[in-house]
């Protein structure tokens, strides 16, 4: 806060407590109405969130049992049909995404924050590209995955790792942007001290800057993973579509499924049992996400002002 704003505050306090204020005693109908409209707008989203959570909980509670986690999907025994292949598939896909985005995202962030000269045209191109990628529709990443990873140059086929790479490309901007913020938050004096003692630039980055930015990077990674775990559309294009009644052999071979894709497949079937199953799956997915989000929020709150 600058000095001016301090003075202004005093002036405002004075105005508020002065007699002029007495002129406006009474209810400001227009103002109150405006406040009500604002409150209604923000409540619209929250009420829908509550309704959605209650709806999924009620609808899915009938099938929220152990079978949901331990059984294969089945069209015949709908009472015991479960999500096991989808859970295993999601685990594979997520592990693949994690090991891809962390080194790449953090490296890119280090380059852009510590090494890049912002006046160079190629660095500006990189920055603009990262911003643009964040705005590309997710299904376009699915098309890219289909053309480049499943078929085309990489030719991995419809395997879990193809899904991992597709999702990794999609959430990479999130990791880069949050890692950059974390790195920027490290005080410059620390770098100067390290450099002054004779450490090289990389030694400074690796031993001083990076350890201090871990909480921020971790928060960004959790948020990116929570976005990836709920994403369905790109996975539809890179193979997680087949009705899988077996577990994927590994991340690199065999058909796979993923929890959101399985939910979608159950949901579009006309029979009610499948819709209940879909709701139960959605409940599990939402619970998983809420856990991940709260860990991220807790981490951010804990480390936000410690530097």
């Amino acid at each position, binding site marked *: 806060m600058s000095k001016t*704003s301090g003075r*202004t505050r005093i*002036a*405002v306090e004075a*105005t*508020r407590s002065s007699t*002029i204020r007495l002129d406006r005693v009474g209810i*400001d109908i227009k*103002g109150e109405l*405006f406040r009500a409209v*604002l*409150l*209604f*707008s*923000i409540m*619209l989203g*929250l009420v*829908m*969130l509550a*309704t*959605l959570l209650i*709806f*999924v909980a009620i609808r899915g509670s009938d099938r929220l049992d152990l079978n949901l986690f331990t059984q294969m999907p089945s069209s015949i025994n709908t009472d015991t049909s479960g999500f096991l292949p989808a859970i295993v598939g999601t685990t594979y896909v997520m592990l693949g995404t994690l090991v891809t985005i962390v*080194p790449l*995202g953090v*490296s*890119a962030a280090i*380059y*852009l924050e510590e*090494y890049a000269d912002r006046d160079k045209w190629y660095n500006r191109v*990189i920055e603009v*590209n990262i911003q*643009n*990628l964040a*705005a*590309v*529709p*997710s299904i*376009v*990443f*699915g*098309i*890219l995955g289909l*053309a480049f990873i499943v078929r085309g140059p990489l030719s991995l086929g419809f395997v879990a790792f193809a899904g991992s790479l597709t999702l990794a490309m999609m959430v990479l901007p999130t990791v880069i942007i949050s890692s950059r913020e974390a790195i920027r938050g490290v005080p410059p004096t620390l770098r100067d001290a390290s450099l002054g003692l004779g450490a*090289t630039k*990389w030694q400074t980055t690796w031993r001083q800057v990076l350890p201090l930015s871990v909480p921020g990077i971790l928060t960004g990674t959790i948020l990116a993973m929570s976005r990836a775990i*709920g994403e*369905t*559309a790109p996975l*539809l294009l890179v193979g997680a*579509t087949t009705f899988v009644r077996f577990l994927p052999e590994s991340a690199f071979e065999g058909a796979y499924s993923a929890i959101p894709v399985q*939910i*979608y497949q159950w*949901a*579009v079937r006309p029979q009610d049992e499948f819709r209940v199953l879909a709701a139960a799956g*959605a409940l599990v*997915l*939402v619970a998983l996400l809420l856990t991940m*989000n709260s860990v991220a*929020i807790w981490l951010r709150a804990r480390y936000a002002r410690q530097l």
Partner: protein
Amino acid sequence: MATTTITSTPDAEFSLTAKTKRIGEKMIVAWLFLAAALAVLITIGIVVALILPTIDFFREVPFDRFFSMEPWAPLFATPTYGVVHIVAGTAAIVIYSSVIALPAGLASAIYMSEYAGPRTRKVLQPLLEILEGIPTVVYGIFALFFVAPLLKDNWPTWIPGKLGEEPGFQFVLAAGLVLGVMIIPTVASVAYDSMNAVPRALREAAYGLGSTRMQVATKVIVPSALSGITASFVLGLSRAVGETMVVLMAAGAMANISLWPNDPILTMTAFIGRTATGDVSTGTTAYYTVFAVGALLFLITLTVNLIAIALVRRFREVYE
């Protein structure tokens, strides 16, 4: 002057330049640069992945047929390719969802920045983040199993004409409504950030002149944050254009040019998703159609984003 000689020693032993060439360190920097450049590679990859099959598509289907008014039925025995029908479907969804998302997002942002106290804000912000983080497939289920039946059962059938007809299981209003609420946090968070950046002194000056809270919000904060608000709107629009799961599940599968809320429609994203889940073999025209539609979708979202950037640059307010 001559007595105080500063002995500059160009040939001294002490030097700040590194004794070794530090090849390892240079290689690390090269790797870091490559990681950052990957973003450019991905963008190039998207463009190449879309353009090559799109060229193949236009080799088989003439340009003017794709953009003609003929029906959209690329998977039929005698295929027709009037893409206008699914572009219109996308437009309908964007209109319905932005009617909800834009005003409600802006109002939420105003409430958070000008009305809510710090404690309320601390509760509201994570809640909005959760709303943003719910998987789209869950929103799809909600739209299909809860909102659509609810609307269908309470449809105002007493209205004469087309508007009074009871909708089917999937129709544009159900998807647009849910999508609209889903986008509120996106609009709200960007708009809130730009309102937060308006200097405090500006508010205080307005209050000092006797403005009410509503006057400050609508006449000072909103105009000052206009660039950010515009950006938030455009971002919301481009999310509505690109969203897949909700429209795939709740908007229907009929390529319609229609703005009636009770009609089913097909959007570009829903077409891509629907075709991908079916059996489409490589090399067929149907396969290439996915890429042609994808290219058009990418082009539209890119244009929208460029407009956003241009608008922001034009309206940007500079504070000292």
